[in-house]
C-alpha cells in the first residue's frame, strides 16, 4: 500500500517536472533536484550529485537519465527490491515524457501558428533568463545549503560534495577546462575521477 502510494507520488512528481521544464536538460535538473532533494526527502545532495555525474557520462539526455536513475533509487531505497526499483525508473521516465508528448502533439497541429507567433517568442524571451537563474540555483544548492529559523538564515557548505580545499580546486579547474578549454564534459568527469583517486 505504501509502495503503491510512493509509485503514484513518483509519477505525479515527474509528470509535474516534465510539464514545467522549459529550457532543456539542465533546467530539468533544477526541478528534479528541488523535488527529490528539497521537497521530498528521497535523495541526499551528494547522491544527487553522483546521479548527475553518471547521467552526464551515459548516452541520452541528461534530464531523462537522471529521472530513470532517481526512480530506481527512490523505490529501491524504500523497499530494497530491485524489481520495484525497475518499476520506479519506468514510472519516473514515462511520467516525465508524458507532458512533452501531449504538448508536442498540440504544437505539431498548430506548427505554423506557433512558429510565427510573436506572443510565443516574446514569452519565451522572458522565460529563458529565469531558467538561467534556476540552473544557477541547482548548482548553488549542491554547494551550499540554506536553512531558515524564522528570519535568520544559516548557510552551510554541503560537506559530502566539498570535504576540503582540494574540492574547490577541482571545481575551479573543471570550470576553466570546460568553459575556456572547451573540453568535452565526459573527459572532465573522467579527469575528476582520476584526480579523486590520486588526491584522496
Amino acid at each position, binding site marked *: 500500500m505504501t509502495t503503491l502510494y510512493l509509485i503514484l507520488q513518483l509519477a505525479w512528481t515527474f509528470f509535474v517536472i516534465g510539464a514545467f521544464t522549459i529550457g532543456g536538460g539542465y533546467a530539468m535538473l533544477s526541478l528534479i533536484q528541488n523535488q527529490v532533494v528539497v521537497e521530498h526527502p528521497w535523495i541526499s545532495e551528494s547522491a544527487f550529485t553522483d546521479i548527475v555525474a553518471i547521467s552526464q557520462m551515459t548516452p541520452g539526455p541528461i534530464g531523462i537519465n537522471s529521472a530513470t536513475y532517481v526512480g530506481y533509487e527512490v523505490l529501491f531505497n524504500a523497499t530494497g527490491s530491485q524489481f520495484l526499483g525497475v518499476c520506479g525508473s519506468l514510472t519516473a521516465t514515462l511520467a516525465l515524457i508524458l507532458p512533452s508528448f501531449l504538448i508536442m502533439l498540440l504544437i505539431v497541429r498548430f506548427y505554423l501558428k506557433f512558429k510565427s507567433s510573436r506572443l510565443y517568442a516574446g514569452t519565451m524571451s522572458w522565460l529563458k533568463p529565469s531558467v538561467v537563474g534556476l540552473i544557477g540555483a541547482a548548482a548553488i*544548492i549542491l554547494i551550499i545549503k540554506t536553512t531558515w529559523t524564522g528570519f535568520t538564515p544559516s548557510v552551510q557548505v554541503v560537506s559530502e560534495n566539498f570535504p576540503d580545499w582540494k574540492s574547490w580546486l577541482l571545481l575551479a579547474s573543471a570550470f576553466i577546462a570546460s568553459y575556456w578549454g572547451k573540453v568535452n564534459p565526459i573527459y572532465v568527469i573522467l579527469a575528476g575521477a582520476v584526480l579523486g583517486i590520486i588526491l584522496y
Partner: protein
Amino acid sequence: MEKRVSLWEIFLVFAKIGAFTIGGGYAMIPLIQAEMSRRGWIADEDLPDIVALSQSAPGVMAVNISIFAGHKLRGVKGSIAATLGSILPSFLIILAIAMFFTAFKDNPWVERAFKGIRPVVISLIAVPMVKMAQKSCKNVWHWALAIVSLVLVSFLNVSPIYIILCVLVLGFSVSYYRINKEIPGQAGNDGEGGR
C-alpha cells in the same frame, strides 16, 4: 510521404540516435540531421525550425524532436515509436548502472573517484548556465529576472515551478502589451526584448 515507413523502422532509427548521443540534446542534432536527411524523412531546411520548437516546448529537446519527427512520418503511433526508441538505450544503460552502482558504492576506489567527480559536476552545470545567460539575457530586466530566480530558489527554497508559473504570466503580459501597443500594420519589425 508516399511510402509508409514501418513503425519498427522508426523505432530502430531513433534507438540508434539515442544510443549514440552522449552529452544530451545538442550532441544529438547532427546525428538526427544525418539520419533524417539520408532517409528523406525531414528536409535539412526544416530542421532548424523543428529544433527551435522542440527547445521551447516543455521537456527534453531530444524527446520533443523524436515526437515531432515520428508524428510527421506516422502520426501519433509514429511519435510513440520514435520516443520509445530514443529513450530505450539510455534507459537500459542507466538501469544497469543503477543496479550495479548500489553494490559498488561503498568500494573505497569508487568512493575516492566520486569525491573527485562531485565538485567537477557542479562546474559542468555552471558552464551551460553561463552560456545560456550570454545568449538569453539581453537587457537589464532579463538579468534581474535571472538573479531574482536564482536567489529565490537557492536561498529562500522557493520551488522552481512557482517561478516558472509567475514568469510565464509576466512574460505573456509584457509581450501582449508590447505587441498591442504597436501601430497596426507595422507588424514586420520584430525585436521582442532584444532592444
